[in-house]
């Protein structure tokens, strides 16, 4: 799964952007966007701002979940009370890359069935299958599952806390770009922790 995160100010001006990949299930934290979609991502996020403005007056929650979809790109939104938008574009791995992983699941399950007659090692095999099965409902495979929503909510929560800290700086004015490397590291850490 690849992520593109951006903070948009009240005048639809970008304040911060960051691109990363999943760190769960052995991910290396690198995004897998193609060079072309990198440019496209910014347009997709920007176009979803219209939908944010529609949704924001019907739902008072800060976290608005997935509000927009563009082919395989899902956009989750978190709105601060001061009307700054946190947008996260998440792109599950394309079906081509899912297919081999599902085939490994079936092969390993058949292997465990055949070996389950023997003894203790098969328990480990069964456990392993359970693990892969739960991972199919986890963040990477299903962008609208409750687990994914919860993970993104936690991610946004942590970013929000750091954003408020940035805003608290007496030298910061509304809609200023956030350039602090400390902030960037914090966002990266939150991404590693939850996504």
């Amino acid at each position, binding site marked *: 799964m690849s992520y593109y995160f951006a903070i948009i100010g009240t005048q639809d001006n970008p304040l911060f952007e960051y691109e990363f990949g999943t760190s769960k299930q052995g991910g290396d934290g690198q995004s897998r966007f193609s060079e072309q979609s990198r440019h496209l991502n910014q347009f997709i996020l920007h176009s979803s701002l219209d939908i944010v403005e529609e949704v924001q007056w*019907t739902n*008072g929650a800060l976290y608005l979940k997935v509000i927009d979809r563009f082919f395989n790109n899902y956009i989750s939104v978190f709105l601060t*009370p001061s009307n700054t938008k946190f947008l996260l574009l998440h792109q599950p791995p394309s079906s081509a890359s899912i297919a081999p992983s599902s085939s490994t699941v079936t092969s390993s399950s058949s292997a465990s069935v055949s070996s389950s007659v023997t003894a203790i090692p098969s328990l480990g095999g069964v456990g392993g299958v359970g693990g892969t099965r739960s991972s199919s409902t986890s963040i990477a495979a299903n962008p609208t599952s409750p687990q994914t929503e919860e993970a993104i909510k936690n991610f946004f929560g942590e970013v*929000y806390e750091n954003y*408020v800290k940035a805003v*608290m700086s007496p030298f910061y004015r509304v809609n200023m770009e956030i350039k*602090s490397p400390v902030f960037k590291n914090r966002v990266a850490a939150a991404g590693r922790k939850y996504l």
Partner: protein
Amino acid sequence: MSHLLAKPGGGGGQNAGAKDQQSIVSGGSSSASREAGLRYPTNGKTIYHRPLNRSKTAELSQASFAYLFSEMVSYAQKRVTGIQDLEKKLNLQGHPIGLKLLDLLLIREPPRSQTRPLNIISLLHFIKINVWQHLFGRQANGLEKSSSAETPDEYMIIDNEPLVNAYISVPREMSQLNCAAYVAGIIEGVCDGAAFPARVTAHTVGGKEEGEMWPGKTVFLVKFQPEVLEREALIGNKG
């Protein structure tokens, strides 16, 4: 001094000294590896390392605030010609505070009640209760809607005794002035930040006659922009 140093005993003292030196050396190398151009505080703690929640005891002294505020007023006064301009200057000084308070106070709320104000009433309640509690340690004294049919866009927040005016005596020739314009600026900041653009002004309404209960009674007149009311009507119809 030497007595104090000698006290912990030979070996222990030396050990501690060595540790100190080590930490100094490692501190130096880590700061050298950081990016040039960005300066960190000596203890390495930036604003991101500080907690957002305030402990109960962390209140400011009113005397120091009054001193600072009197300086702010006289600073503004030196740069203006009229009372209107002076109030505008004070208003502008408060505005960014309101914008920031909005974010800060909502993150301090328990997660369940973290909601953005969607209509005028919930926004004004937030100001009356949360903002006032944070700034002045108590709630505002009242919240009223303009009874006149011509001005449905006007709301009033009433404070019987504004804290900012506690040590301010306005000369007779400037009786129009109310330094709570600063607080009006904060309210305006909160409204603007929450996407409810408004003009907020402070007016003294305390009577001049003897025996008045609240001579410093101040009304903050919140006048929302027409588009806010328009949106309010749309949302109301939907709900």
